[in-house]
């Protein structure tokens, strides 16, 4: 037995694990790799191959046309904002669901998953109807001159809707397991509820919270169905990148479509990698890396 002392080095290692009392590395690693290749890596490679017909210059030219740039900006900025908003509200929902017992809790708990289950187009149509200037909620904002549907605000609302379950479902189990005594210890030491939450609870939740944010963000970037119904899809204002891809496909411009897709892929991958690294760091702070 060796004592695990987290090194300050890199969080990963390239060494092949030594044989252990729990064998199975060979077969599980092989299976995981095959599976990932078939389902994820090969399709992505084909995508890049398609785009590479244009060459790096070609991709760059397609990606930097003003309309594509504007769409990419709309996609990634609203997705990031929606993921952050979900982080806050998702955590509150998870908190309420785990900490309190009230009538209807089970129903609420089940309702959290609905955005998972609903065909996204249905969600989009429902949201568009609600937030349209003559819809129930849209009408409330109309007198203030705020338009929600058919603006980037509408996209944002659709993305919040579809991303919420990711944060709730990742944070909930961690919160469930969180030892109440640790909060009580903090209170007896003189901390306010706010201090307890910020200094003790939040750091413990942060790895799960980051996972939730990453998932919600990734989902939001790729979302198409619900957004196109509420976005209005005006070029340079409320047009998302996936819509542009579909538009290119409809014009049989496969290379152009895959060029935009490749750029999205690269940005998403960089963002998720960054979140994962952040997560590895915060997990190591908890001493269970």
């Amino acid at each position: 037995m060796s004592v695990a002392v987290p090194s300050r080095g890199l969080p990963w290692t390239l060494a092949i694990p030594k044989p252990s009392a729990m064998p199975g590395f060979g077969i599980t690693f092989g299976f995981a790799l095959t599976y990932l290749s078939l389902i994820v890596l090969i399709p992505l490679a084909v995508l890049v191959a398609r785009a590479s017909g244009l060459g790096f210059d070609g991709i760059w030219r397609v990606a930097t046309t003003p309309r594509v740039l504007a769409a990419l900006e709309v996609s990634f900025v609203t997705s990031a904002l929606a993921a952050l908003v979900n982080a806050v509200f998702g955590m509150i929902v998870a908190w309420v669901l785990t900490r309190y017992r009230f009538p209807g809790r089970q129903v609420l708990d089940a309702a959290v998953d609905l955005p998972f289950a609903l065909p996204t187009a249905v969600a989009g149509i429902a949201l568009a109807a609600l937030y349209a200037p003559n819809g129930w909620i849209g009408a409330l904002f109309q007198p203030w001159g705020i338009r929600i549907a058919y603006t980037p605000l509408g996209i944002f609302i659709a993305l919040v809707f579809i991303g919420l379950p990711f944060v709730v479902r990742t944070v909930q189990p961690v919160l469930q397991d969180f030892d109440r005594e640790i909060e009580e210890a903090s209170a007896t030491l003189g901390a306010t509820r706010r201090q307890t939450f910020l200094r003790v609870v939040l750091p413990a939740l942060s790895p799960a919270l980051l996972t939730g944010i990453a998932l919600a963000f990734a989902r939001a970037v790729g979302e198409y169905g619900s957004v196109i119904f509420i976005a209005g899809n005006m070029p340079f204002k409320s047009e998302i990148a996936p819509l542009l891809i579909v538009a290119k496909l409809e014009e049989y411009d496969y290379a152009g479509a895959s060029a935009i897709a490749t750029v999205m892929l690269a940005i998403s991958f960089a963002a998720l990698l960054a979140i994962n690294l952040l997560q590895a760091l915060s997990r190591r702070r908890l001493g269970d890396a």
Partner: protein
Amino acid sequence: MLRLVAGLEIPTGGRLLFDGEDATHLPVRERRVGFVFQHYALFKHFDVADNIAYGLRVRPRRSRPSSTEIRRRVAELLELVQLSGLARRLPAQLSGGQRQRVALARALAVEPRVLLLDEPFGALDAQVRRDLRRWLRDLHDRTGHTTLFVTHDQEEALELADRVAILSKGRIEQIGTPDEVLDQPATAFVAGFIGEAVRLPVELAERTLRIGEQAIVIEHGLPAGAAALFIRPSDLTLAEPIGRNLLTGTVVSVRRRGPARRVELSLGDGLPTVEIELSAGRTARKGQAVHLRLLTPRLFPS
């Protein structure tokens, strides 16, 4: 009860006084209690020093000590709990005994008015428990914090405490020094709980005590009728079969226990077996009949 004193639970009635000051409705964080939990409840993402400093760092700016002062206090407390070299370790890298000492230092950092220990050694193995118990007593004598220590281990309670309170079903049965609760148990519950006592159903008549088929003459001062006799291992001795007022018993089993030998005896069919202690030099055979003298009759009406 500790949770009531700490303010983690709300009492259904009564008042809570700290030095005569009413603290019944004081919120937890204003009570200045030091609470040590059975399962440590350390902050996993803070190292040892940050854990100890926590109570000082969360104070409002007005009463918060400077960061040099906090560092000094932490070093002092680390010294006190003998963990000076481990300030930068995370709780996951410490043993159970070390973690509990960190928890204690963390509780002491806020200069509590009362220190509350909730079975602090419950999750530790016997050797560590014994060492920590001695160390805690020593620490208490040096720092003089009023300390409330909850345990299910009566040996621990009797060894550590100046005053022991015995609780049963949420009520205090007796409060007293270890000597008082051992020598003059106030209720049948205490008599049965403390000192490995065995409860025997007995019948009392005037100056007579009847245990199963046997009877001896004693002065008891209780009304006649059914009663409970509590027998500890030290209450019975082997006697030569001369003289009167002896009980006879049959040896059921003999076990070695620490420096002495334990002999389990039956005083009659259907009665619980009682135990006596013999020095390791003597022994008894299984099935042997022995004569016994009852030294201390602990009788309670039942």
